[in-house]
């Protein structure tokens, strides 16, 4: 078992990371559209999508029976299933794989919940290193405004209510997100994340993203499906 090595599969793996409300999902959707129009075989792999583990995760969340340890492990299990059954076969087949959130989300969340940073990094040692990991950097107040405007309520774990930071959901969420943000900032140099200024207009961010992706795909011309 090789750890976190640079993969040598013919496919490419692009991931987006950032706190809720950073606009990363919108940017990934726009990238997806463009890649498809350009004729690349592109596949979207979603977080929390493994059918095998989904029921257990849902039960744990609904009944609020997850601790930091089981929260971390059940998400790692889910991620492993997607890695083994979805991402790796796709990369072998030469696809361009897009992930909305990746291992860095787990590193940030689990460490904020009190798990040992070294343990969590080692736990995900089986993960393939992305071709590029984009980090959408946004100030907390901007992200908070985007989220609270568009939503009716926050979920228990999403707001970090299990940490007992505050009785108030919104306040708990803000403190939780701030700590997540700190973890992301530590990871920028550690994992060489590609930082995108998420306060820029959407179109400008997308131009930068496409430039970076294009440069990586140039070395993989054979992926291109004839239009």
């Amino acid at each position, binding site marked *: 078992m090789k750890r976190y090595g640079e993969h040598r599969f013919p496919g490419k793996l692009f991931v987006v990371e950032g706190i809720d409300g950073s606009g990363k999902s919108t940017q990934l959707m726009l990238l997806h559209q463009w890649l498809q129009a350009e004729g690349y075989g592109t596949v979207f792999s979603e977080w929390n999508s493994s059918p095998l583990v989904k029921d257990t995760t849902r039960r744990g969340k609904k009944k609020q029976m997850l601790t930091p340890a089981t929260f971390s492990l059940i998400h790692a299990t889910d991620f492993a299933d997607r890695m083994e*059954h979805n991402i790796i076969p796709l990369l072998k087949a030469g696809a361009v794989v897009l992930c909305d959130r990746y291992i860095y989300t787990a590193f940030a969340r689990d460490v904020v919940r009190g798990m040992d940073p070294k343990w969590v990094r080692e736990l995900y040692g089986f993960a393939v290193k992305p071709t590029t990991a984009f980090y959408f950097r946004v100030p907390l107040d901007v992200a908070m405004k985007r989220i609270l405007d568009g939503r009716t309520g926050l979920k228990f774990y999403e707001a970090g209510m299990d940490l007992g930071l505050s009785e108030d959901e919104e306040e708990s969420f803000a403190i939780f997100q701030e700590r997540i943000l700190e973890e992301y900032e530590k990871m920028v140099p550690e994992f060489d994340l590609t930082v995108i200024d998420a306060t820029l207009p959407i179109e400008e961010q997308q131009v930068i993203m496409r430039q970076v992706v294009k440069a990586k795909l140039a070395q993989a011309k054979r992926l291109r499906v004839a239009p």
Partner: protein
Amino acid sequence: MRETYGTTLPGMRLGELTGKLIVIEGTDGVGRTTQINLLKPWLEQQGRAVLETGVSRSSLAGKGIKQAKEGHTLGRITLTLFYGTDFADRLEHEIVPALRAGFVVLTDRYIYSLMARAMVRGIDPAWVRNVYSFALKPDAVFYLRIGVDDLIPRVVFSRGFDYWESGMDLHPSEDMYESFRKYQGALLSQFDVLAEQYGFDIVDASMDIRSVSARLKAGVARVLSGEPPEPLFSIPKPKEAVEPATEAKVIQMPAPAKAAGAD
């Protein structure tokens, strides 16, 4: 004071865990359950409160694991982590509260079985050790040791071959009997490595039930009285030739679906 194998989970105050943690390890069909069923009333007669627990029984993940195994579609890393989730849930919700309350916790298998299963499937031992490094170090591990030849009649004449206990997911052979032999042989050699690394107290499980029970009771009594364990046995060599313990067997899969990031 109680220790872990590396990392300590948030909120786990080790100093409060005053109970005793006793592990019964051993492969499938070796008689662990029978022995635990004899130990529990024996301890209770002496006024000890006992919690009995075992693998894949957690309220969080036990059902999910069963369902996933029905489909035989779990990947090796996924299965390892699913068991890890189950273990963490039982550790935090059963074992730790019982230890805090001063119980004797008798656990049918512990991390070692889970590690052996993963390693037989070719997963990096260092990675597996890290996954389980939050586990509490037990007060004693009694390993019910048996050779494949003694194991086979017990399994065949009681419940027959099981898909997972025969390692059929690894396709070692079309035939369940051959698969069972190969898979259990590989597991036993992994257990021998773990026995040395983790200092198991080895019990010869080819003896009759009463002799094994007497041997276990003596061992448990020693742990509970706080006496030091007997010096470690060296692992008895089984009749058939077996590789040295340091080179534990791994079942080779036909198409080596290497782990993530393989060349």
